């Protein structure tokens, strides 16, 4: 959380230049008549790499015991040296490409100094002077606003310190220390708290689809610092003095914080005072921001080029290789699915599952619902496949109160099942039975094998079908009589009995024909 303390104070300055930023007109808002709002966001997203940014220690989740994922380097032991993890660079480049940013062929690492117990070396390695990517954009899907991304830089996360409420002891957990972060800095291109929220959601979606970060605010793998200023609606381009609100940990909290900060700044201005440039915190319970420190108290971080780390040189073919193996982004994925004949609703269901899926380590894309669908749909009717997945599989999973990530049924199993039903070797009812069986027993046996074991193969020869039909007619003599008399509606009851004694193996169509041929 301390990773970004106060950084923006001087770094964002150029973005706020009145001469540069003229791209959007101020937007009137009922909540603050006569005023316009300008928002810029700095996002810190944890890179989902197996190992940390500069050591081969594994990264951790919140469930790990404190200080179990710490190496001598992470604890800044004397004599240890950093070694850049190429996976972090690759995931950074993926993110930059997804945001349409220019990947710099030469970037460098710098040290940012401050003393704090969860920063063992006394400095954070970041990319202050030469970030590895610049000039991107993120298009917000609903409002269609293009938010410009100033730069993306790689840096280290800090450890965590926890203090007892009234105690004098601070506990330090270094599991997180040295984990790779991407700092993604936007231009001040958002005009309302809602646009800010949309920006963060869109960014989360991009990060997850390229597999570079969980983007999970609740678990702290994505944190936001927000710059807010207000100005008179009739004076576009004359931006007000901004304040930075630090460490916003939920999207809801962020919109509340921005709203309350906007109202506070307007109050200050309407009272004839000036907004002081400062760094502010957010009190979630009182829904208010409060002063953390003024501009004058901004610390001097004594940035220095890191003398251990050579410049990061990324050749064009390295970048283009990553570009050619990029996972699809949300927009193109949806277009592709619709093109395959899926309904809007089906694509939304599939993609909604993916936006919450677990992102794999080192860019391995977890077997999400879209990928699962794609695998199963190869050589099969996409519409049939999507039905089996969204209706039967997801239905049964939610019935069992399980999520898609817990789905034990492989794409190969699902494909086999669809084939069995489509070729009428089993009935749809048997198909559903097999699906439930797989979820229940978490078996890896293929459905065709299960169909045999469970005696579910549809009756292939007329003998067994004839036998079941005769048995049914014997069991229901009065119904049989009615059919003979021409009441064909009663046939369904006999047919139901056939299905029952055949345990679903009988093909209903064939059974119906057979029954009629016997009875007439």
């Amino acid at each position, binding site marked *: 959380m301390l990773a970004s303390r106060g950084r923006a104070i001087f770094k964002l300055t150029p973005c706020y230049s009145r001469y540069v930023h003229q791209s959007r007109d101020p937007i009137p808002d009922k909540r603050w008549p006569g005023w316009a709002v300008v928002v810029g966001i700095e996002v810190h997203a944890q890179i989902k790499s197996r190992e940390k940014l500069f050591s081969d220690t594994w990264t951790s989740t919140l469930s790990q015991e404190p200080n179990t994922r710490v190496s001598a380097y992470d604890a800044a032991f004397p004599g240890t*040296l950093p070694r850049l993890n190429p996976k972090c660079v690759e995931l950074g480049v993926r993110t930059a490409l997804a945001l349409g940013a220019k990947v710099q062929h030469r970037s460098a690492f710098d040290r940012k100094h401050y003393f704090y117990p969860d920063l063992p070396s006394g400095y954070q390695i970041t990319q202050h002077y030469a970030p590895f990517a610049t000039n991107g954009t993120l298009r917000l899907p609903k409002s269609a606003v293009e938010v410009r991304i100033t730069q993306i830089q790689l840096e280290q996360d800090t450890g965590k310190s926890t203090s007892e409420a009234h105690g004098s002891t601070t506990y*330090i957990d270094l599991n997180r220390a040295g984990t790779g972060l991407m700092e993604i800095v936007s231009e001040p291109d958002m005009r309302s708290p809602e646009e800010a929220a949309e920006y963060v959601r869109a960014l989360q979606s991009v990060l997850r689809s390229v597999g570079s970060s969980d983007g999970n605010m609740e678990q702290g793998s994505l944190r936001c610092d927000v710059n807010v200023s207000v100005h008179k609606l009739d004076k576009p381009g004359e931006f007000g003095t901004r304040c930075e609100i630090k460490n916003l940990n939920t999207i809801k909290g962020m919109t509340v914080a921005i709203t309350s900060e906007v109202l506070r700044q307007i109050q200050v201005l309407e009272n004839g005072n000036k907004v002081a440039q400062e760094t502010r915190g957010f009190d979630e319970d009182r829904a208010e921001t409060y002063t953390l420190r003024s501009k004058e108290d901004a610390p001097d971080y004594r940035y220095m080029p890191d003398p251990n780390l050579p410049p990061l040189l990324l050749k064009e073919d390295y970048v283009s290789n990553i570009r050619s193996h990029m996972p699809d982004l949300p927009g193109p994925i949806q277009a592709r699915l619709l093109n395959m004949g899926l309904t809007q609703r089906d694509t939304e269901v599939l993609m909604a599952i993916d936006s919450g899926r677990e992102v794999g380590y080192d860019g391995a894309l977890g077997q999400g619902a879209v990928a699962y669908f794609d695998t199963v749909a190869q050589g099969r009717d996409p519409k049939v496949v999507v039905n089996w997945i969204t209706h039967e599989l997801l239905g049964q999973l939610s019935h069992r109160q399980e999520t898609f990530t817990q789905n034990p049924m492989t794409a190969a199993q699902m494909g086999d099942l669809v084939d069995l039903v489509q070729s009428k070797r089993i009935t749809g009812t048997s198909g559903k039975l097999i699906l439930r069986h797989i979820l229940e027993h978490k078996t890896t046996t293929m459905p065709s094998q299960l169909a045999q074991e469970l005696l579910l193969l549809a009756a292939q020869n007329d003998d067994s079908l004839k036998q079941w039909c005769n048995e049914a007619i014997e069991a229901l003599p009065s119904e049989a009589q009615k059919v003979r008399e021409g009441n064909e509606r009663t046939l369904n009851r006999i047919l139901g009995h056939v299905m029952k004694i055949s345990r679903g193996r009988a093909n209903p169509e064939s059974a119906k024909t057979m029954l009629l041929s016997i009875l007439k």
Partner: protein
Amino acid sequence: MLRQQVVRCRLIQRSRKALLKNCYATVSQTSPREKDTLNALVYRVNSATDTVENGPLKDVRVAVKDNICTAGIPTTCSSRILETFKPPYDATVVKLLREAGAPIVGKANCDEFGMGSLNLWSIHGPALNPSQYDKSPGSEVELRSAGGSSGGSAAAVAAGLCDAALGTDTGGSVRLPASYCGVVGLKPSYGVLSRWGVVSYADSLDCVGILGKSVGHVQRVFQTLNKFDDKDPTAVHPDARKQAGFLCQERVNAWPGDATLSNLRVGVPQEYFPTELSTAILQPYRNVLRSLAKRGAQIIPVSLPSTHYALSAYYVIASAEASSNLARYDGIEFGLRVDPDNMNHVNQAGDIYAQTRTFGFGEEVQRRILLGTYALTADAFDNYFLQAQRVRRLVRADFDNVFSARNVLSSTSSAPECGVDILLHPSAIRTAPPLVHDAERDVYKLKGSKDDLDAYLQDVLTVPASLAGLPAMSVPAGVGEDKWPVGVSIVGQWGCDEAVLKVGEEIEKIIGNGEAIEDRHEMRK
């Protein structure tokens, strides 16, 4: 060990006076000539458990400077702040020594974190110089500094406690004590020997150096340690090493040695004879030049015009990096911790760190941290740090303009038509400086010195090669008028370490150094 580190900042009252009393190291006042009173080794290793038997270096006993990590063995950096620190790992260079079977005899005294030129800034007390040549029975023993910062390493070699020693050289810390103690001291090309496990003072300048009783010893250890280590991000890639080695070999083949050195071109840099240079140094230096010339070497005056600015640039860069590297000593994860006397004055973490750092760091280290911190502040950064980096580039360019071999690390460098193969200059501006014992405080200090800056001045001759990352070696060149050793330094193009060693060998033959050390030991017995 790390797993159990739920580190706590507990704030307990503690008496600083009690700590202070125990921490000042005292030096025995008996004759420094006796091996155990030289104060060269601060920790002795009795059994060599991890050392390979019958390795190629089994006959080379090695001491390791106390700022190079040794697993389970104290690595204090001569600092109170690391007085009890035992690293859980070996530095790569130590690992390579063990693998080659070199017996490690102990840890060598040094200036705190390598900052100093006299080995006076050490919690272990000064390392004393065993190298007085004029030793007639019953004569007064003179107390002289072993030099610094690798003073213990040089003194241990000179006294025969070991055959070779590892030191570190940031701005001359191997070459200077080698010169004062009359031993060989090599600072290899930057990026050639692994720095992993070497406690950082100034990363962009720090080199592991080798001291030895002969060039042959230094060369054997160097060849053992000269391996690419991917744990060191500043290690130069094997391709560049190979390329430089090839260029260097071409030159070495041209002067076969022994009978003739006719194709050897020796540069004499004009700027390396400042007014402070003691005349006692000049005679042995001239003798070496004369002997080389007699065997056919060409002596060529050259100019390195940026030399005058090198010292200031060096102190800005080294101090800036030191202020950053030493930020980790805060008493939280390892090392000394001093809690505040009065908790009422504690408002932030820094108030607690201040106690530990004020008490744990010595005077010189504190001075450089303050200087470096200032150089990195937003107001001073451009005028100091960036300016120093510019000077550093000029110093590099100076060298590239005079050497016959191209600098393979520089894309713009092209060797001049009539460049020199090596540069030769005095290693130090004087012989080992005499010390006096201040009985009142029971500490040693420089005899007759008024100004702390005197100590910095010495580095004038050694820092340019450090700034440029070039191989430089001090070899003994006899004694001065005061009968104390004088060294001359050979500097080569980047990656031409073997050429530097080769010329060192030739000078050694002229001086007959190998026997010189033995003679001194004989006389002492």
